[in-house]
């Protein structure tokens, strides 16, 4: 493997400066779980590595007075999975984190690294869309904010431009009494999803859906959300028939491929079942409060 220059800046501004100067051959490195695997496979051969490990602000987790949660880009999957402050609708992100790979990889991998790689079968992308997250990105011109729905552009492609790094994920407060659930199907423990469903759901006292955001992973270049399908359930009691109608409409928007994990056709068949299961789990979780 070729030698690379290694930098370990202490601030985001310094990291952006080094990355910008490095141009094409520069890569930021957070947990290493993705980038080093690609380097070992010689898919990426960076000239300049910019470690984000010494930047304190990237490791922070906090909640603003308005309920918005800020997850620093260097937060490990283990930390997010066990984050007790991610409750209600925001818990969908913790639940997704808890299903990433296996314990040693969750000790290493970071939310910023995972979403920057943007594997379409990864666990965070649909969860962040369901949670209506915003991605904070730092670049030469300062910080900018991109909604999760506009962040994942396609197969391994994100809104991050050269010289930029993801600095945080922001989760808005979910509606009162909302529940978040993440339902994943994989062939063996710790694998990427064949398909997954993330949802944030809230009902009023009469059992009518007041809030729903649902996104599917593993069935296209990025997470798929279909507001038109959600509208079939919002404002109504979430009956099995309505949920099936939602699933039928959403499946029209999916664009899965055949791969070693399963065929596209199989994915289209299991997604409605995963959606039904996700609703069932979310409604069960709500029961004591209803």
């Amino acid at each position: 493997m070729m030698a690379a220059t290694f930098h370990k800046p202490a601030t985001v501004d310094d990291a952006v400066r080094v990355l910008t100067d490095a141009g094409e051959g520069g890569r930021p490195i957070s947990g290493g779980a993705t980038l080093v695997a690609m380097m070992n496979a010689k898919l990426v051969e960076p000239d300049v590595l910019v470690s984000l490990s010494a930047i304190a602000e990237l490791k922070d987790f906090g909640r603003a007075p308005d309920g918005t949660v800020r997850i620093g880009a260097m937060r490990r999957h283990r930390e997010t999975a066990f984050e007790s402050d991610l409750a209600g609708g925001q818990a969908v992100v913790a639940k997704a984190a808890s299903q990433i790979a296996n314990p040693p990889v969750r000790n290493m991998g970071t939310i910023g690294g995972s979403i920057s790689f943007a594997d379409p079968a990864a666990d965070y992308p649909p969860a962040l869309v369901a949670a209506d997250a915003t991605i904070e990105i730092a670049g030469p011109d300062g910080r900018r904010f991109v909604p999760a729905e506009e962040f994942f552009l396609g197969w391994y492609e994100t809104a991050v431009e050269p010289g930029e790094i993801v600095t945080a994920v922001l989760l808005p407060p979910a509606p009162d009494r909302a529940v978040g659930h993440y339902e994943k199907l994989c062939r063996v423990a710790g694998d990427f999803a064949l398909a997954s469903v993330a949802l944030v759901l809230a009902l009023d006292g009469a059992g009518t859906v007041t809030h729903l955001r649902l996104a599917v992973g593993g069935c296209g270049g990025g997470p798929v959300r279909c507001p038109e399908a959600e509208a079939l359930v919002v404002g109504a009691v979430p009956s099995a028939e309505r949920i099936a109608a939602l699933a039928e409409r959403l499946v029209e928007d999916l664009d899965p491929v055949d791969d070693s994990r399963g065929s596209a056709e199989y994915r289209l068949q299991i997604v409605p079942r995963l959606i039904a299961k996700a609703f069932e789990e979310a409604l069960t979780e709500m029961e004591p409060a209803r």
Partner: protein
Amino acid sequence: MTTKTQDVTVTVNGAARTLACAGTTTLLTVLRDDLLLTGAKRGCNQGVCGACTVLIDGRPMRSCLTLAANLDGAEVTTVEGLAPRGELTRVQESLLKQNAVQCGFCTSGMVMVAHDLLQRSPDPDVEEVRDALSGNLCRCSGYRALVDAVIDAATGGAA
């Protein structure tokens, strides 16, 4: 910090070591090639198989996915450092007792994750053990004996 090699000070199995690392050198390479600690194995080199697992600051992680240059000040424990020379940990004793070692390639990684589990959860149930070992592949497929051995280690042979 802009040279092609970094001087990195890492505590390995209790001893401070200063190493000159290229930016892309992984901890696994340093352990095996420089420090001749060959307990951690290079299986897939992709973080999938778990054979290279070591403890970094007390947590099991993949040494094949860890850049040595990023570890300045860290504490690394390999399978060689879990017990004093000539002695075995409870997990290792149980693996022997339960014949849970076949070809042996996965063993050191399994020992590391099992050791970590019992540190955090001294009395795990079978599901917890399976979850803890889920990131470590045994191509002999000797999982049943491995899970039994970890339970045995936890209960001191009472189960």
